C-alpha cells in the first residue's frame, strides 16, 4: 500500500485521522526520496522497533508474513541480543511530541532506511531522535484512543 509521506493516515479506515501522518508507505511503483540519514537515526529507529513492553510503538499487528515491497525479501527480521522482530507484520506510531502529531509507518520502514536508503522527512527523523524511550508508551492504546476520538 503506497501513501505519500506526510499525507493523512487512512489505512483501513473510511475517513482520515488528521493528527496521524503517513511516513514510509513505499512500494516499487512509486518514487521515494533517497539519501543518507544520520546514523543515530537508523540505530534508534531499529531500537524503537525492537522495543519492549514498556515502550511499544507497534499497533495493528497482523497474523501474516509480508515481503519487502521493494526487494521482495521475505521474512525480513531485525535482531537485538536474543530478541528477534519480524518486520512487516505491524505498523508503528511515533509521537511528534512538540506538535501534537503522530507518524504512522509500516515497521518495514527500518529496512527501507537501512537497505534501500529511504530518506524520510526531517520531521520524522527529528521525532524519532527526540523520543524518550524511558517513559511508558503503548501505541496500540494511543491508536485506539485516536480512533475513538475520530468516531465522536
Amino acid at each position, binding site marked *: 500500500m503506497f501513501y505519500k509521506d506526510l499525507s493523512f493516515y487512512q489505512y483501513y479506515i473510511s475517513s482520515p485521522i488528521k493528527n496521524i501522518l503517513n511516513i514510509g508507505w513505499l512500494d516499487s511503483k512509486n518514487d521515494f526520496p533517497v539519501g543518507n540519514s544520520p546514523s543515530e537515526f537508523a540505530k534508534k529507529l531499529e531500537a524503537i522497533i525492537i522495543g519492549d513492553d514498556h515502550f511499544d510503538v507497534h499497533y495493528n499487528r497482523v*497474523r*501474516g508474513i509480508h515481503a519487502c515491497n521493494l526487494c521482495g525479501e521475505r521474512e525480513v527480521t531485525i535482531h537485538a541480543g536474543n530478541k528477534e522482530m519480524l518486520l512487516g507484520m505491524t505498523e508503528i506510531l511515533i509521537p511528534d511530541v512538540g506538535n501534537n502529531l503522530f507518524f504512522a509507518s509500516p515497521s518495514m520502514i527500518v529496512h527501507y532506511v537501512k537497505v534501500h536508503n529511504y530518506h524520510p522527512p526531517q520531521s520524522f527523523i527529528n521525532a524519532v531522535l527526540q523520543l524518550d524511550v524511558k517513559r511508558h508508551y503503548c501505541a496500540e492504546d494511543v491508536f485506539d484512543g485516536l480512533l475513538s476520538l475520530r468516531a465522536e
Partner: protein
Amino acid sequence: MGAFKPKEKPLTDSFGNAQGTAVVERQTPQQADTRTASIGGGQLEQMVANGQTLDTLTPQEMAYLARQERNNGGVLPEDLYNAVYKNPSDDIDEVVVTGYRTQADRDWYAANFNSIGYTGPHKDYFPSKKPDYVAPQITKISLGKVLTQALGIGSLPAAGAFGVAGVGIAATSLATKLPILNEAGLLALEVGVGDAIGGASILRAGGAVIGLGAAGLKSLDNLAASHILQRTSNGSYLAESDFGVLTKAYEPSTLNIAGLESGHSFARSVTEGGTGRSVAGHGSYWSQDGFSIVPEGTSITLPREGISIADKTGRYIENGDWSGLMRAANVNERIANDIQGMTTWLPGATVPNYTLTKPNGLNIYSRSSSTNAPVTLNNLLSPNMGCVNWAACTVFID
C-alpha cells in the same frame, strides 16, 4: 444408484446461474466464488404454480457421485459440480429465515410448519423436512455482507471485495438469507459444536452443522436467526429459541495435532485460555502448495482468501468470542474487514493449502495450537477433529 443424468436444465436466475444450487466454482487464490441465490419456499410455490418440476436426484446422491468422480481423478460434470458445492442454505427454508421479521410471515410459518417440518400444500417438494431426512453434505458456511450490515457494522468493502457469500447478491434478493445462515454457522462453532453435541459424528453423517450458541442468539437479537435452526439438519442439532436452547455447551477439548511442535515460545504473549479449537500463528498461501480437502469429521473456519487479519481478530477467534468479534467489528473497520467472507468449510470442501508458521510477535492463547516450523493445512487437518479455526492470515505469497 444409477448414473447421474440431469433431468432437465435447471432454472437460471438473472445472473444466469442455476437456482437451487450455489454456483461455487473451485476456489483458487485468484478466483472468487460466484454465488447465486438458492431456491426457496416462495419461489417453489411459484414454480409449482407454473407447472415446473424439479430434478429429484437427492443432494446426497449428487455429493456421492461428485466425490466418486473426484476420487477417480475425473472432472466433475458441471451440474454435478454445482450441486455438491451447493448452497448450505438449501437445507433451510428461507421463509423461516427472512420471513420472521413480520407478523404476516410468522402467521404463514405457523400455518405451514409444525415440529416435523413443512406441512403445507407443497410438502412433497420439501423433502428436507421429512423426519427421516439426513441433511446433505454442506461444504461451507460463510459470513457475508448483509448480515454485517444488519448488525450495524458499517464501512465495509465494496461488494467485489467479498470472497464468498455476498458476491454479486443484492440485499433484496433471496440470498439475503445467506449471511444470516452463514453467521449462524460461524457462531455455532463458538463452543466447539463438535464437542458439545457430538458434532464429529454429525459431520461424518454429512449433516448440517449450523447452530447458534447463546451468545449467537443474543448477538443476532431481533433477526430471524434465532428461528432458523429447526429446519437445518437431520435433527441431531437444534437450537430453536422457541423451544429453548436444546444443547448444552461443554468445554471443548483442545486440538491434538500429531507431530506438531508448539511455537508458543515465539509469541509476544501467551494468555491463559482460549477454546483450544484454533491454530494460531502467521498464515500464508504459497501457490505451489495447491489445495487441501477437508477430511471427514472435520471442519475449518477460515478468513476469506488473500487477507491479513489483525492479531486482535485472531484473538477473538482463538477465544471463541464471536459475539465479541461482532462488537469489535462494529467499532473497528479493520476487524469488520477481517470477518468479511469468513467461511466454515465442511468435510469434502477444497480449500487452499495454507501454511502456518510460528507466532512470532503475536499475542495468542495457551490452549491454541501453534507451530515452531512451517506446516501446511493438509498436515494439520485429520479426520474427526471436529471444528477447527484458523486464527491466522490467508495472504498470498507467490
